[in-house]
């Protein structure tokens, strides 16, 4: 069976290894999904029945939780993840214009990944950096008072 799984999908054994240490914890499903995304960069569809079986839940329950939360990705993320804040405080500092300029420079829509797998562009609603709006996070590194120039500099400097 395993050789039928596309190369970018983790094998069953790897999925089981992620679930095993968490399955006995109280209310473990979110923890398990986080751990899968941590391990693989996304939560593969192929993991849904495995998680359901291991946690004694229905596939519908797992699917329902997985798709409820914006944070979980259903496809592999790019090498770099760019999260642009779109909330009020950043809007008050021309964050929408910045968000559009960033999308244009990257030639990406929000919620998509570049075809070469380099960059994923996402909207977020508040990074808690509202005193430094507009704010962006690149690969978990926060940036405040962002301009197109400082954004490009930071992206170019992000470790591969």
């Amino acid at each position, binding site marked *: 069976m395993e050789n039928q799984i596309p190369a970018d999908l983790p094998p069953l054994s790897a999925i089981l290894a992620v679930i095993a240490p968490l399955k006995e914890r*109280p*209310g*473990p*499903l*979110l*923890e398990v*999904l*986080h751990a899968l995304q941590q391990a693989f960069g996304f939560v593969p569809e192929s993991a849904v029945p495995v998680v359901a079986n291991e946690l004694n839940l229905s596939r519908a*329950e797992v699917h*329902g*939780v997985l798709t*409820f*939360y*914006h*944070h*979980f990705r259903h496809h592999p993320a790019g090498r770099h993840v760019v999260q642009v804040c779109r*909330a*009020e*405080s*950043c*809007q*008050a*500092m021309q964050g929408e214009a910045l968000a559009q300029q960033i999308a244009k420079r990257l030639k990406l829509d929000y919620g998509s990944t570049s075809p070469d797998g380099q960059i994923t562009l996402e909207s*977020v*609603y*508040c*990074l*808690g*950096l*509202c*005193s*430094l*709006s507009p*704010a962006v*996070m690149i690969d*978990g*590194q*926060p*940036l*405040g*008072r962002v301009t197109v120039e400082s954004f490009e500099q930071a992206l170019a400097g992000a470790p591969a």
Partner: protein
Amino acid sequence: MSAVTVYVSRDAAALALGAEAVARAITTEAAHRKLAVRIIRNGSRGLHWLEPLVEVQTPAGRVAYGPVKTADVPGLFEAGFLTGQPHALARGNIEEHPYFRTQQRLTFARVGLIDPISVEDYVAHGGYEGLRNALAMSGEAIVQAVTDSGLRGRGGAAFPTGIKWQTVQQQVAPQKYITCNADEGDSGTFADRMLMEGDPLTLIEGMTIAAVAVGATQGYIYLRAEYPHAHATLNEAIVAARKAGYIGDSVLGSGRKFELEVRLGAGAYICGEETSMLESLEGRRGEVRVRPPLPAIKGLFGMPTVVNNVISLASVPVILQQGAAHYREFGQGKSRGTLPIQLAGNIRHGGLIERAFGLTLRELLYDYGGGSASGRPLRAVQIGGPLGAYIPASQFDVQIDYEALSGIGALLGHGGIVAFDDSVDMLQMARYAMEFCALESCGKCTPCRIGSTRGMEVIDRIRANEHRSENLDLLNDLCETMLHGSLCGLGGMTPFPVQSALKHFPEDFVRS
């Protein structure tokens, strides 16, 4: 010569302005000059426009420099900053800065002052005195102290914390829980984040006191996934507290057990609502529960559960340390104690200001904030996040106080203030409120799930001047339906920004 202690913040706001590189540059430059320097990564003092702020411990006290760029570092060494010598970026003792000196820091007393993950430093600055006092008291007496302090839920609902605790305490159950709502999703708020990154042990101590008071043995901090730095700091602090015996099987040898762990949210704003947070903690979709039963009676896994915001819990140690009367002396009317206010958006001097209730919005925006960042006149502020009302400049003399704000149809929420200059388009902000509600609705009730999308469409028609006056009536009708017919605050409060925009800025809705 012994090593000079230099503080460079690890707060995400400082990191967002380059604090990491500055800390590295100081280490490198010191090595190059063969000078012994010990860098402590503290929290932020809250003067965010001065970040990255570098503080040096000198015999005459701490001397601050900021905002420091890596390029400034060699010059700072050249000027003798390690002995507090003058430099263009020198700010003196930051505690004497007017922005800081005029604050009343109770909850944030240690934030920016100490090493956030050092139990030793925490205890040296009054930490864990509250817990020690609590362990010598009965659960009823602890709850009474919290009630007497007048502390109300700082997450936004402003429910008296002591009353909530009392309900949990009175339940008989095999298991009780303390849960901390750290899903700080409101735009314009960052007090929870700053506290968790700058003094996480205060939160841990507050949760431990709550556990002792109500007889709980397990705590969870539900933290939003957008806060990776707070996550790391909290986990380090929990490990340190456990190692020092402040949490674990027998808290300070008292025989009382309290375990604590951080659970991550996953980007759902609705999980800041307490019942959806509990659903999420149980590993389910963050859909709102119908109340009753209250979480205090049937909460996490069906057990009696305290659900409090970070700032509420972090305000408990000082109450138990200094007494309810001391905390209560701050503030006015039914708003007692202090509030960590967050100044954000289009503001020159954004940051955190902890003050007793009662100062005016105008003092905050101009005396602290220094007016807009853009230099244009301030036109509106939104207080309390995406569900908070917009307040026009004509009402800037309102006092920051739960009752005063509700008196003008606004709400305090979590104390975040987002300022907008006169370039703001209030119709667009009203539309965004509906858009955000549509995006974040859990989908359980119709007014919120469908109403928000219909709201966007109606606002688009108003903008396009299609039957404008009928659609304005329809928008108000829709707001009333959402207000009265939604299960929780998301659908029920989205009308606040929309209707306040309509009321105070009608001119923005009739432009063609």
